């Protein structure tokens, strides 16, 4: 069995200061981290590897300038990682990347399961998983909190939010599952693997391959988004404090909502 885990990177929020008044983001420390949801996807992949002995291959969520997130995945315990190199379009959105990743998976000879984060921390994009599943024509389970492979590795089961609670969703393999941020705690890397993969020593370093993304596709995919500039989202308005009994507070909330909606 082969599981693919798709991982991104995001500027560490602890190293930046947002100054809305100046209209700028000040980067005090340029350090990139694995986004929370992708960390959970990696942990889900490792747990499935622990349970089934499957091969785990890490792929990048975007065309990154370096392979750091893939080295992190190898240090954690992924068996292989493919760095996709080459210049992409100005806005390499999820539609573009889904096509590139589908081609990479075909180049790998297919897979049984793809795991990735349900959303990204910086852009809040959520489309990569669904778009990739559509291209691969696989079933998809979104926003899972727990994933297990069942029945001699033919079925994936996942716990997903439903109607204010949780439901057990099931799909035949091959399938794609996106994992919610905060679902699982990522294990720590193995120290020796960490040092060796960054120093380029031994089997763990050799497990990092470099592919030119343009060689994977005959036609260059077209992004659906176009970058026209960037500005801060509108400032969040102050809330209304309500007090009193439950009924009084409910009436106050309803009144505030009516007023806000102009009804």
């Amino acid at each position: 069995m082969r599981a693919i885990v798709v991982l991104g990177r995001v500027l560490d929020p602890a190293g930046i200061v947002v100054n809305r008044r100046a209209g700028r983001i000040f980067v005090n420390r340029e350090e990139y981290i694995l986004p929370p949801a992708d960390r959970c996807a990696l942990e889900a992949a490792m747990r499935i590897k622990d349970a089934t002995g499957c091969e785990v291959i890490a792929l990048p969520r975007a065309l990154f300038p370096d392979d750091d997130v893939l080295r992190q995945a190898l240090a954690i315990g992924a068996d292989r990682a493919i760095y996709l190199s080459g210049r992409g379009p100005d806005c390499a959105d999820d539609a573009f990347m889904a096509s590139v990743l589908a081609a990479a998976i075909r180049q790998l000879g297919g897979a049984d399961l793809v795991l990735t984060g349900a959303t990204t921390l910086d852009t809040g994009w959520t489309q990569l998983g669904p778009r990739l599943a559509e291209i691969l024509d696989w079933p998809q389970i979104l926003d899972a909190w727990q994933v297990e492979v069942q029945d001699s590795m033919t079925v994936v089961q996942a716990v997903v939010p439903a109607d204010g609670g949780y439901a057990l969703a099931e799909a035949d393999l091959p399938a794609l599952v996106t994992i919610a941020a905060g679902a699982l705690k990522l294990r720590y890397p193995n120290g020796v693997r960490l040092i060796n993969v960054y120093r380029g020593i031994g089997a763990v370093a050799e497990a990092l391959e470099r592919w030119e993304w343009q060689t994977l596709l005959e036609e260059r995919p077209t992004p659906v988004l176009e970058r026209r500039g960037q500005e801060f989202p509108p400032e969040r308005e102050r809330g209304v404090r309500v007090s009193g009994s439950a009924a009084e507070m409910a009436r106050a909330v309803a009144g505030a909502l009516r007023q806000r909606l102009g009804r």
Partner: protein
Amino acid sequence: MDFTFSPEHRALRRMIREFVENEIAPLAAELDRTHRVPFETMRKLGEVGLLGVCFPQEYGGMGAGEIGYCILMEELNRVCTSTGTNVGAHIGIGAMAIYLDGNEEQKRKYLTPLARGEKIAAFGLTESGAGSDAAAIRTRAVREGDSWILDGGKVFITNGGYADIVTVMAVTDPALGARGGVTAFIVETQWPGFKVAREEDKMGIRGTSTAEIVFEELRVPHENVLGKVGEGFITFMKALDMGRLTLGAACIGGAEMALESAVRWAKTRKQFGVALAHKQAVQWMIANMATEIEALRSLVYRVAWMVDTGQPFTQLAAMCKLYGSEVASRAIDMALQIHGGLGFTRDFPIERGFRDARIGEIYEGTSEVQRIVIASNIFREHGVRIRP
């Protein structure tokens, strides 16, 4: 010159930062309050390979070198000086003595489980009558066939209450003194004749075991002589050199914690209508702290690089320990002053940091001993041999 950390050391710091924030920081106040050694944390540190961070991979270590070890000590002490001290005594002096002067068999048998965190080490040097004057030890080792019989005791031994292996310095030829008459031994604490006499009740680093240990006709096989018979003093001084450097790194962490707390407090605490950050008296303290920390960081990591590249560093290691411990003490003192009365309470980690920092100027060679080491080296270069 290149002052940047390598990619593996940046990744190592990221891993350690995450580990200490998740596993160690939440325990720090409780360890201090209950005077408890965090055995569970030591086990977890061993599982991820951090208890062998600087040792070669062939002996169960991570192979991250002295720079990697300094990163570990800096990050540990940023959140918990007690855990940093436990780890420092284990890696920096206890296991380090075996790494530096152990033979191949000793490294396989003892260093490997220590580097993997399966066993914990301590370093047995100080005695009640031999503190700064380490050469005045009285613990005696007498040869008997293929063994040595140890009698005596050690005090202020970090990890002493629970270590599995202790590297011990004992007198083997009283006539020769420290130069030729002292030998280092690897002692397993499960052997008959090894006893833990008492645990110290300390002002700071209360999440550590500081024990008095006693040897009563303790039989040590000759194969457990560490280095050569009569050269134990040299072995121990080499281990202490390494320990002093990494204590300097530990002090970066302690001082950094003080600075971070002081900045956070100065941003939020308002007096006379403005945040303390706008007061020049506070700004100067913050500026002084930050400047000293940067100077210390430059010194410590340069010396760590010298160790990793095989250059002599004894004098500089003493400077790391001397300057580091005094920078850390000054930083926590200023942070407490900025916090005012609240910093004096146990509601803030500053109070614990203040008590923890004080030992830095005492253990593994007092500031006065470090000055002796530094001055001796300087005068030796000018043809003068000074006596302590």
